[in-house]
């Protein structure tokens, strides 16, 4: 399975807040870009060889551009640091087709969007869609300080009372997650995006408020530095022998192992039947299957080898 990529033009770069730039990408031929839905992200193939996912924050109705928000991360190994120091207007960049792992539920009666820092980006796109559809929603944006709250000004003026800004350096504006998510109502959906610790805090409040898991939607922005995104190559290691095998972009773990004469039973080759399930001893699986339970996925201790890949540069399998 290969990834379809397109070339886009950097039409603009704007300083949005301390440490945050917005990057506007357009079609170099001037026409429409491939469509996206609110909550989508783009895998950006940076010229220095790194691939990074960035959420699209403009309205899905805008067919002529993708607007991304990029936070300069202290732990950056060259991704956001490169964008902040080397990217320039007029540059051409390769991106994968927009992918959505964080979409709105159309039938929601009321949507609550909760953003932590740069996690605000996909939620801005969602707020456009909800507003255009006259849907009931509220937007909570948690940021360290006003000078670091990118897009807050625009959100405030466009959304009015539906939008609330919560600043860490002003306790009077604090977001009381436990109180505000304290009582789930049928038809209510929650969308959370931001760093892991922030998400965990919000999810705990939602859990305590009786939110069913199918009404809570999460997109995690990880600052991990050895992350492998998309269909990039990675290594698998056979624990019993130490044999290290490369899994190329167009290959699967199952195929790569088979070509090294390590045979795992398989059947559907679509990730739904579980026959090729294998234990993971080290590394972070990138689950793409339709078989594992949420608990199994989170545990990171097993993987469906016919279709899933790796988030870390190497995976050690219990073989």
């Amino acid at each position, binding site marked *: 399975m290969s990834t379809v990529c397109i070339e886009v033009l950097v039409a603009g770069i704007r300083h949005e807040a301390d440490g945050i730039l917005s990057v506007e990408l357009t079609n170099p031929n001037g026409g429409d870009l491939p469509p996206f839905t609110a909550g989508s992200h783009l895998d950006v193939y940076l010229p220095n060889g790194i691939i990074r996912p960035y959420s699209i924050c403009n309205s899905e109705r805008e067919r002529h551009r993708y607007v991304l928000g990029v936070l300069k991360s202290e732990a950056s190994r060259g991704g956001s640091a490169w964008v902040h120091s080397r990217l320039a207007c007029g540059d051409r960049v390769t991106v994968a087709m927009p992918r959505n792992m964080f979409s709105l539920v159309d039938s929601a009666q009321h949507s609550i969007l909760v953003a932590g820092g740069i996690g605000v980006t996909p939620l801005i796109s969602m707020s456009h869609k909800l507003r255009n559809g006259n849907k009931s929603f509220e937007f909570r944006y948690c940021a360290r300080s006003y000078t670091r709250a990118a897009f807050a000004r625009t959100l405030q003026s466009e959304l009015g009372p539906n939008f609330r800004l919560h600043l860490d350096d002003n306790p009077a504006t604090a977001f009381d997650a436990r109180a505000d998510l304290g009582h789930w109502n049928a038809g209510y959906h929650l969308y959370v995006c931001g760093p892991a610790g922030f998400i965990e805090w919000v999810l705990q409040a939602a859990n305590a408020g009786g939110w069913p*898991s199918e009404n809570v939607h999460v997109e995690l922005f990880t600052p991990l530095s050895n992350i492998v995104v998309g269909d990039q190559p990675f290594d698998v290691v056979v624990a019993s022998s130490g044999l290290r095998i490369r899994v190329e972009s167009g290959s699967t773990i199952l195929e790569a192992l088979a070509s090294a004469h390590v045979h795992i039973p398989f059947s559907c080759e679509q*990730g739904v039947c579980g026959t090729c399930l294998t234990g993971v001893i080290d590394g972070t699986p990138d689950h793409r299957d339709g078989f594992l339970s949420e608990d199994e996925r989170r545990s990171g201790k097993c993987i469906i080898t016919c279709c899933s890949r790796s988030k870390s540069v190497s995976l050690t399998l219990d073989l």
Partner: protein
Amino acid sequence: MSNVDNETTRKPTSGRLGQPYHPEDPNYPLRLWWIAGYAEEVSDGKLLARKLLNKNLVFYRKSNGQIVAIEDRCIHRGAPLSLGWLDNDQIVCVYHGFRYDADGKLVEIPTQEKCPRAAKLDAFKVVARGPFMWIWMGDPADANEDDVPEFAWLHDEKWVFASEHMLVKSNYMLLKENVLDLTHFPFAHKSTFGTLDDYASAAKFSYQDNVVTFQKDFLNQPLSKIYDRDLNLGGKPVDRTDLGKSMSPAEHRFVTTIKDPENGNEYQFRFQHLTTPETNVTHHYWWVISRNYGLDPDPRDWFKQIANEAFSEDKAILEAIQARINEAVSPLEMPEVSAVADQGGLMARRQLKDFMSRDHA
């Protein structure tokens, strides 16, 4: 780590994935409320015989209206108690007149004073709720009546429903997997539901909190004929969401919600598939069709017509599959390869495993 497996079930020896239902192995949880039938089937003074979960049972109503179920077998010499009669809330065996109370205790042997203490049959808790009666066949101490499903819409005046029973000669899981993969419509139902090619592409599946769900959205499209009958929106584009849920091994519900964007009106059409194993290779199937629109003229005959037409098509296929399993020398070695659309059915197998593991908790 190998395939996800329950150690107490048989595994295929070839290592290849095979069809998982062995005719000799029960594959149902006991710690679950199962449907036993329609409450109205147990009428005053009559004994109803029915086999559920491999047990022959006899049902009757006490004079206070409560429904009772005990083993349908006299502990004396094995005559079915259902051949006997009811007298004063007690069953009298047709053979030698042994009498049992509603707890299954032998209370009289006509020709002697004492009843041996060992003469006790299993009795099962039965709860009537809505049109159905539900039975608990696990440890009576674990039975919680609050867990018996309500199906509130079946006694709501804004809804109309029809329901019938079918005895299907297949393991019940075959039907549960059938209703989780609607891509069979254009083929199995080509002359009945076949026009619904809605499921030409797969739905979105998930297994969370022991419930298997699939969802498919049909946005801004004219309604299929089956839903439009008596709604008469014609070719007007509406939003429709299908939500299929296997709530437990006993219950599946399929809810179609139709929203008219012009006036915001919402309508619902539901199919419920309620299954209770009879034996390892046969099952009771109660279907319920309901909707909250088009109550007049009465659509129930039409519900029965479409149900009988379509579900007999499923029945024929499932029974043909089961017949092969029954005659196979090694039933678990019959190879099986899944498609993406089988995700729901495969999740239902995990759901079953999770429910059965509660029996050992």
